[in-house]
């Protein structure tokens, strides 16, 4: 019977193409508006590293002064670590891997004076960064733990930057001169661009969603060369002048990450952090005695408000618009089905039960939904293309994926079924005797 209902549905829709088109367009616009905003929210709030997101944690201590401390308010210096804490974490923190990173920026000094400088931005980090975040290497490899210890002048470049400097050939072994020092290229990152850029949300050049680490160098190499942080630095206490004093200060400017063996190890990691803080407090630090916190990847993005409230509001507004479109389609279907009361009467007289009429009309509304879904999909692609023109940040997230593609269809079909339920139910309630006599 499904094929029969489908045939009847298609005929019915062809009978009144203008009304059909109106219903399809109404649904399509509602679906496209919702899907476009949902797509952006989906990418913005999506888990960038689902296999590990519960095991990768950021430790956070409150190093601020006791004065003016309010437990309800977080100050800016709370979102990163001090250098001493980061180094202590690296040496003896919990988890199977630990890393620390801070933003750096420089320019490659050209071999010939007349050549232009090539700007580079990236991070100083440790070798564990690569396996922790599953960073693929196109050429070469990451530097070694020994390089971390020695502060070797080695570097890894992003694929795009390596190609811009060296072309498509393997640049491993080549040298670049940065901060008046020769650095040897040991690796080139392959295609890797997590969105959002969860590893470096605070200092990432390009915002939460766009950009990449063009240059990665050992943390010790950067600190040995007194490479100043390119990004957020928050100091809560006065400190002496000079790089060594800066490193020893309570300024927060380094992002720390721990990789736990499993999410179940989190209480142990929390216990380690609490014990560490207690030890530091005995030494006179961390006078606020604020809670010591761990954030997994999704919690971290939520804490930093990667998804802005207005993005969520836009989704709610678009869902409201979809509801409006569904109500409109419902009205159109009611009008359409009311003209079919006579047909329903005849079918009922000839042996169709209410359930059969319900199925017939439901298939018809589903056909409208599928057509609305197809058009909605086309409109969604168009609106996402339009959104990409609006801002660089949005251009990184306004992309349809298979999940959202399926969601579009499901949304259209569900919307059409919801829109069709009342008209279909009313069609089933037709009193056949009344309709047959009135013909």
């Amino acid at each position, binding site marked *: 019977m499904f094929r029969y209902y489908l045939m009847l549905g298609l005929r019915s829709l062809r009978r009144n193409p203008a009304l059909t088109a109106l219903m399809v367009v109404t649904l399509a616009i509602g679906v496209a508006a919702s899907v476009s905003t949902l797509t952006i929210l989906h990418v913005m709030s999506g888990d960038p590293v689902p296999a590990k997101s519960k095991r990768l944690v950021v430790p956070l201590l409150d190093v601020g002064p006791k004065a003016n401390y309010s437990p309800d308010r977080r100050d800016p210096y709370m979102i990163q670590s001090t250098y001493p804490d980061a180094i202590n974490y690296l040496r003896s923190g919990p988890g199977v891997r630990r890393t620390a990173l801070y933003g750096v920026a420089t320019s490659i000094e050209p071999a010939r004076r007349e050549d232009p400088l090539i700007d580079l931005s990236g991070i100083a980090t440790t070798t564990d960064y690569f396996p922790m975040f599953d960073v693929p290497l196109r050429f070469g490899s990451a530097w070694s733990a020994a390089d971390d210890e020695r502060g070797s002048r080695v570097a890894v470049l992003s694929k795009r930057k390596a190609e811009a400097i060296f072309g498509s050939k393997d640049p491993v072994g080549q040298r670049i001169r940065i901060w008046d020092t020769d650095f040897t290229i040991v690796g080139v990152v392959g295609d890797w661009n997590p969105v959002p850029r969860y590893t470096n949300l605070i200092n990432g050049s390009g915002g939460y969603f766009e950009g990449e680490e063009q240059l990665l160098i050992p943390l010790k190499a950067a600190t040995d060369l007194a490479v100043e942080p390119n990004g957020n630095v928050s100091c809560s206490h006065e400190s002496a002048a000079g790089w060594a004093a800066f490193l020893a200060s309570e300024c927060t400017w380094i992002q720390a990450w721990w990789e736990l063996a499993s999410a179940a190890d989190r209480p142990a990691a929390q216990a380690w952090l609490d014990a560490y803080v207690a030890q530091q407090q005995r030494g006179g630090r961390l006078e606020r005695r604020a809670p010591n916190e761990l954030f997994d990847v999704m919690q971290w993005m939520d804490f930093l408000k990667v998804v802005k409230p207005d993005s969520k509001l836009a989704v709610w507004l678009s869902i409201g618009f979809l509801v409006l479109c569904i109500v409109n389609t419902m009205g159109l279907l009611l009008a359409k089905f009311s003209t079919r009361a006579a047909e329903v009467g005849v079918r009922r007289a000839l042996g169709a039960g209410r359930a059969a009429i319900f199925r017939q009309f439901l298939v018809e509304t589903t056909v409208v939904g599928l057509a609305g879904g197809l058009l909605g999909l086309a409109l969604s692609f168009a609106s996402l293309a339009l959104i990409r023109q609006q801002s660089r940040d949005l251009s990184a997230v306004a992309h349809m994926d298979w999940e959202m593609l399926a969601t579009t269809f499901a949304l259209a079909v569900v919307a059409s079924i919801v829109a069709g339920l009342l008209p279909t139910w009313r069609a089933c309630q037709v009193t056949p*005797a009344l309709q047959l006599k009135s013909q």
Partner: protein
Amino acid sequence: MLHMKDLTKVYRTHMIETHALRGFDIDVKEGEFVTVTGPSGSGKTTFLNIAGLLEEFDGGDYLLDGVSVKGLSDNERSRLRNEKLGFIFQGFNLIPDLDLFDNVDVPLRYRGFNAAERRRRIEQALAEVGLASRMRHYPAELSGGQQQRVAIARALAGTPRLLLADEPTGNLDSQMARSVMELLEQINVAGTTIIMVTHDPELAMRAQRNVHIIDGRASDLRRGPSLVQPHAITA
């Protein structure tokens, strides 16, 4: 075939109660051709709708082909309607979007016949009413008489035990009406029980039996010889 005993039907609004049928008794035997007459508002159509399981009744008993229809679910009533009853209406009630083939196909779809069986029945039914050559035409392309013939073919295709006709010639001129009446008589001769509501005394007189309804009560006016042998007609 159809037995109603002490049937009552009351239409209620918040202001008025209308007794459409009261103490209504009728017994139609298999093979009979019964015409139903009566003034407007007497309850003819209500009787036909209840007979056709299109309306519920308030009291009394109704047996259709030996099955009590009281308390049947919508599905059971629909199945009974589909298997045992055929309908012919004054306004033909063909579905305008469907060609003749598909119109006749409607009750067969709900019956669950396979495609080959449906085709055989449709072609046979349309041939019986003389419209086999026009099965891909649409209702709007036919005259009123032809449309009523299609409606008869649709009613016959499912080989119903009882054909219910509500003023089937009411919208036709006298020549077409006569032609449709002759067709119904042929169908009755072939063994199908027919109950036909009509305002036309001439047509009413052609049936073996005429039941007159006044104020929701039925009375037999005339009993004639059966057109169908060997079924006996009894009141």
